[in-house]
């Protein structure tokens, strides 16, 4: 999916007239470059590779991390950052292209979807081979919509001339079911589903829609394509059209065209599908088997839009007459900030309730990624060691597309840049069996950024998994630790990295740890609980804003926050010297929040009550009221009934109940996350 998306104009295109001249074919794929703040010293090395990329290929490049701008800009104009605005002054080709693509965009939306089935292949292959004629050198940089506008411009697939310079992601695309790195069971599941649907004698009651879910780059679409080709069926795709830019819109509206949103187009498409079935887009080939695949859904922002999308999908599910596959990609996890994960879940359950089948794909296992990578290595004659392959596989986080791209990038370095010593250092460390992937990140500038959910991270800290029984490696020059300070090595990444992955804010992390840590301590370990409590107290002191005096400076405050989070998590890890064997524990929401809430409300009531009674002829401080007046008052009022404290508690618990109800809405903790085996 990424390969296609990367051709949208908003991406970063690499290329300049000078780099066009060396006739290298543009390749499709994406490379992720990551820069960590700690890896400044790698920049030289990185720059070389980036230059290398630029001079030899055009990669859509994706940069993440800090100081990237400087990196991109400092590069003697070898990289053009093509942002989403169209600059008419560039040169005539660019501007004419802008207009034409606007037209073609319109056309593509109006056009009957005749060649949709072949589109995907044609796009990719077309891009590869178009460069053969130098006239189109410029054109190749443009979006494929332009290409679609060019009717009849079709180049037969598989022109093998440029094979050695193809992107490996395309070159080593699975060709058969056996090539798939997806788990066999899942493939089997999909296959069974198709088998049932594609049989000539159709069962009416079977639902015609399959939902495939999973994170990016794990072979969802490929599986569908492979299974379809296995049955000799034809895959027709709905792909989200390229979004209209504001300039385009302005241009079109001047010529009297009406703007249709992508969602409208999708709704029209569904409507057509329902009314005319497959006839609407397949001409004259009705005898062959056809599978409709909806790959990415149009962007739907906000409740009304997503509701519309959901409705039209439901309609599709209920009325589909040909086998339809909807591919849903789980972007991020459930705790993504925009709540998009939540929406996807809602969508899935709604579709399932409408009768669709669901197959969810898991990330590809490291082993199968490794297998694929080694195969590619042997075919490409690239000398990556097993450790390096394993590392790439691990860093990819189950995303096989990313892994292959990384491997290609990595092989670039192997061939042209001298073998960086840091890698050999790292591999030796790896051989020693230190599983600390975190440190290697700055060595390997690729792979995906892993994210963790907050509860996952908390679970890591609280469970405190360490290497079993192994004695500490006694380096001869190592600082000798007192026995009581020595701990076994952690079985996880550095706590700071986990915090960073979980996007944890210091204050809530500290409070969650405080609330839950005592459950994870040994029953006898009161000394440990003091150590933990002391570190948490340190963290709280660091977090205090000092009435805004000391930390006016945002930078300083930021630092204070991260130090506090680090102290809290490391304190919890260090303090818990003999962790209990892992049991099932639920993570509670900090009670502190509720306590603060009801405390401030009680305080308000207290002050108000005292004033209302007009008893006081002077104000008194809240402390005095709470500690002296109120207890006395209670004695006077309740002397004959029960003891005052219990009545107070009873009242309190009543308040807590209504409190709990009011908070219930955003209560994630009650879901009792299971953190057993993280």
């Amino acid at each position, binding site marked *: 999916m990424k390969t296609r998306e990367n051709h949208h104009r908003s991406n970063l295109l690499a290329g300049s007239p000078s780099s066009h001249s060396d006739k290298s074919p543009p390749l499709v794929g994406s490379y992720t470059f990551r820069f960590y703040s700690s890896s400044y010293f790698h920049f030289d090395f990185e720059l070389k590779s980036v230059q290398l990329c630029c001079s030899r290929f055009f990669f859509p490049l994706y940069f993440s991390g800090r100081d990237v701008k400087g990196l991109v800009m400092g590069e003697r104009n070898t990289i053009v950052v093509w942002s989403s605005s169209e600059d008419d002054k560039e040169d005539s080709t660019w501007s004419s292209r802008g207009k034409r693509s606007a037209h073609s965009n319109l056309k593509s939306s109006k056009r009957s979807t005749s060649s949709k089935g072949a589109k995907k292949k044609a796009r990719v292959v077309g891009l590869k081979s178009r460069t053969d004629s130098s006239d189109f050198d410029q054109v190749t940089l443009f979006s494929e919509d332009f290409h679609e506008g060019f009717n009849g411009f079709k180049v037969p697939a598989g022109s093998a001339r440029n094979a050695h310079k193809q992107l490996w992601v395309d070159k080593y695309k699975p060709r058969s079911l056996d090539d798939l790195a997806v788990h066999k069971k899942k493939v089997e599941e999909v296959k069974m589903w198709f088998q049932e649907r594609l049989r000539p004698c159709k069962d009416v009651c079977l639902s015609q829609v399959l939902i495939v879910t999973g994170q990016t780059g794990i072979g969802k679409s490929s599986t569908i394509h492979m299974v379809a080709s296995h049955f000799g069926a034809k895959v027709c795709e709905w792909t989200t059209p390229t979004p209209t830019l504001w300039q385009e819109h302005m241009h079109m509206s001047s010529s009297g065209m009406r703007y249709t949103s992508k969602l409208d187009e999708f709704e029209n498409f569904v409507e057509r599908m329902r009314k005319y079935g497959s006839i609407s887009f397949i001409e004259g080939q009705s005898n062959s088997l056809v599978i409709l695949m909806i790959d990415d859904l149009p962007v739907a922002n906000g409740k009304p839009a997503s509701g519309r999308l959901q409705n039209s999908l439901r309609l599709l599910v209920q009325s589909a007459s040909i086998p339809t596959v909807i591919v849903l990609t789980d972007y991020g996890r459930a705790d993504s900030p925009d709540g998009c994960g939540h929406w996807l879940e809602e969508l899935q359950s709604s579709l399932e309730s409408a009768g669709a089948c669901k197959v969810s794909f898991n990330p590809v296992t490291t082993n199968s990624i490794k297998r694929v990578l080694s195969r590619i290595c042997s075919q490409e004659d690239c000398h990556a060691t097993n450790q390096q392959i394993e590392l790439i596989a691990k860093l990819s986080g189950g995303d096989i597309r990313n892994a292959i791209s990384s491997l290609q990038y990595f092989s670039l370095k192997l061939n042209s840049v001298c073998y960086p010593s840091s890698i050999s250092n790292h591999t030796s460390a790896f051989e020693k069996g230190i599983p600390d992937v975190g440190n290697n990140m700055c060595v390997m500038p690729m792979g995906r950024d892993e994210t963790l959910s907050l509860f996952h991270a908390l679970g890591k800290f609280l469970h405190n998994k360490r290497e079993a029984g192994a004695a500490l490696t006694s380096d001869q020059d190592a600082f000798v630790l007192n026995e009581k300070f020595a701990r076994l090595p952690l079985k996880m990444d550095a706590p700071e990295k986990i915090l960073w992955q979980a996007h944890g804010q210091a204050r809530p992390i500290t409070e969650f740890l405080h609330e839950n840590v*005592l459950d994870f301590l040994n029953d*006898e370990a009161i000394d440990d609980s003091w150590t933990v409590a002391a570190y948490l107290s340190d963290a709280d002191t660091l977090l205090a804003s000092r009435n805004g*005096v000391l930390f006016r400076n945002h930078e300083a405050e930021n630092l204070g926050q991260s130090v506090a989070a680090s102290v809290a998590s490391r304190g919890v890890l260090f303090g818990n010297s003999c962790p209990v064997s892992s049991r099932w524990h639920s993570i509670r929401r900090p009670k502190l929040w509720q306590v603060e809430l009801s405390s401030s409300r009680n305080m308000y009531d207290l002050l108000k009550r005292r004033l209302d009674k007009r008893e006081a002829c002077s104000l008194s401080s809240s402390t005095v009221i709470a500690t002296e007046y109120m207890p006395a008052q209670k004695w006077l009022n309740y002397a004959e009934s029960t003891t005052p404290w219990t009545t107070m508690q009873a009242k309190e618990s009543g308040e807590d109940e209504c409190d709990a109800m009011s908070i219930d809405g955003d209560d994630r903790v009650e879901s009792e996350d299971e953190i057993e085996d993280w």
Partner: protein
Amino acid sequence: MLWVDQHRPKTLDKMIVHQDVAQNLKKLVTEQDCPHLLFYGPSGSGKKTLIMALLRQMFGPGADKVKAENKTWKVDAGSRTIDIDLTTLSSTHHVELNPSDAGFQDRYIVQEIIKEMAKNRPIDTKGKKGFKVLVLNEVDKLSREAQHSLRRTMEKYSSSCRLILCCNSSSKVTEAIRSRCLNVRINSPSVEEIVKVLETIAKKEGLQLPPGFAARIAEKSNRSLRRAILSLETCRVQQYPFTPNQAISPMDWEEYIFEITSDIMKEQSPKRLFQVRGKIYELLINCIPPEIILKRLLYELLRKLDAELKHEVCHWAAYYEHRMRLGQKAIFHIEAFIAKFMSIYKTFLISTFG
């Protein structure tokens, strides 16, 4: 109405304790213009009583007619406007407020109120420009910025308003403010004085005080007059006529802390620590300030403790009280203290009893 409020002396002449201070203050306000005043001393020593009586001395009975008002102040702070809710108690001659209730926005409130008071200052009968009095409670809880802004406004508007500041500890008031005020230290009344006050109240209420009972209440009250009077009233409700050996019940939260300490002494484990945390939360919900919880906890623990441990436990209590002031959430620090105590106590138990 509670006896504490009911039997509060209304004029400086009727003061039973601090008679010398009262007389001096009377001379001060009758003979000449009144300076800014800063009253400080422990809680329950009679600061507020003196201030109220002083106001009555200055303005006559008009100062007694107060109305409580919950007003929203709109403060223009540079680029934005801040709304601050604050309760004030005011008569025609004075305004009383607890600026620290406004939290971290206290500095705006001090400036704003003083400015507004200065704007509509009263003119007294002789045509002379009069002044209003602003009574600020808990000045020691004001933030440093608020104290600085207080200092500036104090100088700027000194012709139109007088400040009477009231706090427990003058060490938390900046030097600049202290030097601009007449500092009046109010001591805790002695046990004899408290007994005298209790006897006066008993006489007014027509109660028979058995000999020694007032003294016992006074002992228990920790030399806080307010506390003593409240205890007397609760004892009256619990059992009357009084008997000399009648139990004087502590405050409910004190009893609760006593329970907590016995929990701590009985078992030292993370599980127990967790239970104790729940009880501390209960206290916090009922607005018992964390400093007082920690103080009382230490007091109760020390009563049950071996002499050799007392020093160390005190050290840690002081350490975590300091931490509490530096930090934000008190529970972290109170809990760290309890954990430390448990750890110390457990080691002690193991070493003595094996």
